[in-house]
């Protein structure tokens, strides 16, 4: 008897998503939805999207979903969770959203220990607007607003959000993962499970940072973008669990 051993998660819409070929974004959405399906949470969850490529989720994610002002998902999610504690509230944010324009919202939600799960996609640039410098852009990396490469004198250094949040007392789960191959994807899925479990257990703020890619704005093929993550991104953004209480 033939059995389906790997299926498209039920939490996704049926249509093709708006992300570029090879982009990890939809793969991350797939992981989150598959975990929610495993935990039977599809009917009681809300995804709070930031602005940028992440807003493409509106034609991809199949659960209740909010678009929010740029950088504000953590503030919005904190309010939803407090008004509707039985709802599982997750945010989905890019690096410009979470670490630049929304840094205060991110830090303060984490510092309050709001019981939400944050999924942070770090691809070292602003994807939707054409690949400008982000807080996470690597040293020397050329972007459309660092045409001569990021340098410390003008632009400072890449921000490490897991490490930054790890200085706070309240957060309960912080991990950095990537999706470059099957073993890493399995680890990433475990991290998503942990984050959701922490919320289910009422432990407070959890965040999973995905070291992700941007083949289009990096000017690389999907395959080359994976190699770039291995060679350049991972030395700057080490993977691992930073906190698990």
């Amino acid at each position, binding site marked *: 008897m033939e059995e*389906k051993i790997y299926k498209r998660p039920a939490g996704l819409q049926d249509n093709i998503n708006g992300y570029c070929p090879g982009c990890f974004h939809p793969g991350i959405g797939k992981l989150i939805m598959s975990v929610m399906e495993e935990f039977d949470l599809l009917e009681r969850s809300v995804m709070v999207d930031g602005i940028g490529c992440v807003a493409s989720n509106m034609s991809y994610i199949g659960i209740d979903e909010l678009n929010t002002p740029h950088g504000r998902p953590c503030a919005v999610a904190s309010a939803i969770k407090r008004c509707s504690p039985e709802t599982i509230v997750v945010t989905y944010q890019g690096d410009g959203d979470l670490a630049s324009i929304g840094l205060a919202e991110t830090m303060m939600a984490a510092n309050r220990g709001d019981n939400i799960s944050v999924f942070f996609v770090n691809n070292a640039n602003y994807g939707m607007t054409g690949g400008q410098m982000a807080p996470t852009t690597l040293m020397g990396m050329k972007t459309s607003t660092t045409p001569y490469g990021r340098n410390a004198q003008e632009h400072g250094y890449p921000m490490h959000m897991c490490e930054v949040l790890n200085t706070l007392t309240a957060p309960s789960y912080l991990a950095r993962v990537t999706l470059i191959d099957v073993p890493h994807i399995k680890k990433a899925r475990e991290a998503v499970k942990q984050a959701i479990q922490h919320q289910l257990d009422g432990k407070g703020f959890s965040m999973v940072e995905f070291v992700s890619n941007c083949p289009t704005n990096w000017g690389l093929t999907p*395959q080359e973008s994976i190699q770039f993550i291995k060679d350049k991104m991972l030395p700057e953004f080490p993977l691992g669990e930073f906190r698990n209480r």
Partner: protein
Amino acid sequence: MARIEINPKLCKGCLYCADVCPKKVIGVTDAVNAKGFQYAVPLHPENCVGCAMCAIMCPDAAIEVYK
């Protein structure tokens, strides 16, 4: 007997699936989908062992695996 189904409507032709397949089951033809992507197809379905690595890698959740 294992097999995969690649949804041509959802595939964008990144070919992460083809790269990861240990049995070199997947490739492309001249066919393109409605979005203009040269989508992946199981060129050698008879070699599939149902490891599901292609489906795990696929960012667009376009692959389902049967065993």
